[in-house]
């Protein structure tokens, strides 16, 4: 496939002068002052052991202990699943209220609701789902009364990976909706009309025009959803407390608990999370580069 150089896209941009870099200095300064400096002050503790001596023991434990590796893997799995699931259905919802033809009032309602729901998490969310799908939840009761299905006897449980993923969706769907709605707005109607004039079917339009245009935004939203789920703690703790040891709960156990532990190990685990996030970001950046190639 020949490289078609779209206006400026593949041309090497001139290295910006130092004055141009000034434009991003406020942001970097802010991040250093209020994110890196404070968290670094504590995270540096991962390089010290219980007695305060410099040691790499905590970092080594990360890779040596199976329970820690399992926790990371569990966290990655639940984040990936909810990022994908949340991304897909969130996209469909966003589509429905933007270019999908629903009344304008429904869009306002969904957008504002999504704003609220995006941060509905922790004990209240867990309780809401317990009250819905727990053993004494009203949907569980409904299914038993009207359909004769005892879902818990059939093996369903809210207190499982699937149940937690389902609960996580409550803040993943809205996040996707909020980020994608403006992007979907940007799909110019002229493009659709032009495509139809040229004889494209709906599927062709979506596959060849709309989705490629939207893909960078979709990817960007999904990495956000991934990070959102990766860092979640309170909901998982409340709902599946002792049995699904995602890494944030392990960190909490080391740093926060009522039981004497090793904060240094907790900080090391947090550094491990940073590393995983960096790797995910690298993968995402690579994908992003490929999809944004022909967009300016």
């Amino acid at each position: 496939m020949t490289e078609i150089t779209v206006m400026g896209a593949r041309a090497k941009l001139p290295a910006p002068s130092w004055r141009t870099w000034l434009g991003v200095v406020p942001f970097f300064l802010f991040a250093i002052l209020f994110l890196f400096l404070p968290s670094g002050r504590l995270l540096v503790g991962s390089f010290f052991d219980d007695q305060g001596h410099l040691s790499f023991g905590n970092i080594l434990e990360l890779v040596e202990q199976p329970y820690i590796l399992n926790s990371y893997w569990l966290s990655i799995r639940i984040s990936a699943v909810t990022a994908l699931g949340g991304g897909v259905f969130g996209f469909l919802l966003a589509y429905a209220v933007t270019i999908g033809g629903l009344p304008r009032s429904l869009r306002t309602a969904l957008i504002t609701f999504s704003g609220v729901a995006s941060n509905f998490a922790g004990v209240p969310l867990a309780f809401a789902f317990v009250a819905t799908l727990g053993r004494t939840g009203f949907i569980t009761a409904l299914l038993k009364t009207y359909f004769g299905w005892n879902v818990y006897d059939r093996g369903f449980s809210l207190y499982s990976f699937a149940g937690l993923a389902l609960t996580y969706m409550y803040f993943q769907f809205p996040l996707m909706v909020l980020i994608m709605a403006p992007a979907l707005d940007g799909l110019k109607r002229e493009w659709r009309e032009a495509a139809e004039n040229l004889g494209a079917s709906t599927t062709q339009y979506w596959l060849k025009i709309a989705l490629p245009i939207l893909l960078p935004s979709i990817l960007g939203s999904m990495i956000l959803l991934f990070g959102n789920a990766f860092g979640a703690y309170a909901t998982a703790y409340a709902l599946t407390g002792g049995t699904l040891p995602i890494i944030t709960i392990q960190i909490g156990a080391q740093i926060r608990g009522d039981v004497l532990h090793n904060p240094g190990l907790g900080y090391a685990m947090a550094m491990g999370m940073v590393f995983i996030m960096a790797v995910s970001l690298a993968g995402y950046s690579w994908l992003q580069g490929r999809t944004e190639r022909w967009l300016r």
Partner: protein
Amino acid sequence: MSGVRRFPFWSWVWFALGVLYFVLPLYATLDFSLRMERGAIGFKAYQAAFAATSYGGFWPAFSLSLQYAVLTIIASIILVVPTAYWIRLRVPQARRVVEFITLMPFVVPAIILVFGLIRVYSQPFNIPFTSIPLIGSLTNSPWGTGILMVAGYMILGLPYMFRSVDTGMRTVDVRTLTEAAQSLGANWFTIMVRVILPNVRTALLSGALLTFAIVIGEVVLASYLGINSFGPYLFLVGQHRAYEPAALTFLTFLLTWVAMGLIQLITGGQGQAAGAH
């Protein structure tokens, strides 16, 4: 195939499924909150929740959080929009680093952030090599603590605000807009305020809503910085009760929804396809 919209069947399907998923848990919470009185449906839990006077009561705590939310949103916009614009237009090399930074708040637990902020900013900054204080201890003064809170909230909301604004800018062709504006003689400030901002309005709204929700419900930062905002209030009142937390959850949900509706109303609505001219 014409461009006339037939009945958007699938849109309604997705929307209906969404409504079902979102409303059922809320209904379950509401139902439970109304049952504090044995055998009756009533608002006893709501009355009990409002009667609590910790931290001055419901409304003072809520309004304090509102103030913080507004401040955080404004400060975030001022920080993020020019940065996202600059990255997109002039310094794409910085994109990866900036995106990495904006994803960091997800992996730094809020409790680490707050203890770090306290450690760093409880000491005054002296002019190097002297003991003359340049900035006093931020934690010792109310406005200093306020600055720390707003900065902390900005950090927490950074992933969402940046992603929203960045997506919005990708959708709008900022390069062409800028070139057009420049050729008409606009300076940077004019370009930013009169050309870019209005075009990313829907994206800004998304970011603002997300930040707002975060600030209203935030507990960790507020409770360790010693600020009696809404999050700590909810905790103090509802922690060990049965029905009051459900009542407060539902009420907070409604109130925040109304507040967001107001925000949307005042910022002039949404839905105009940005750049579809």
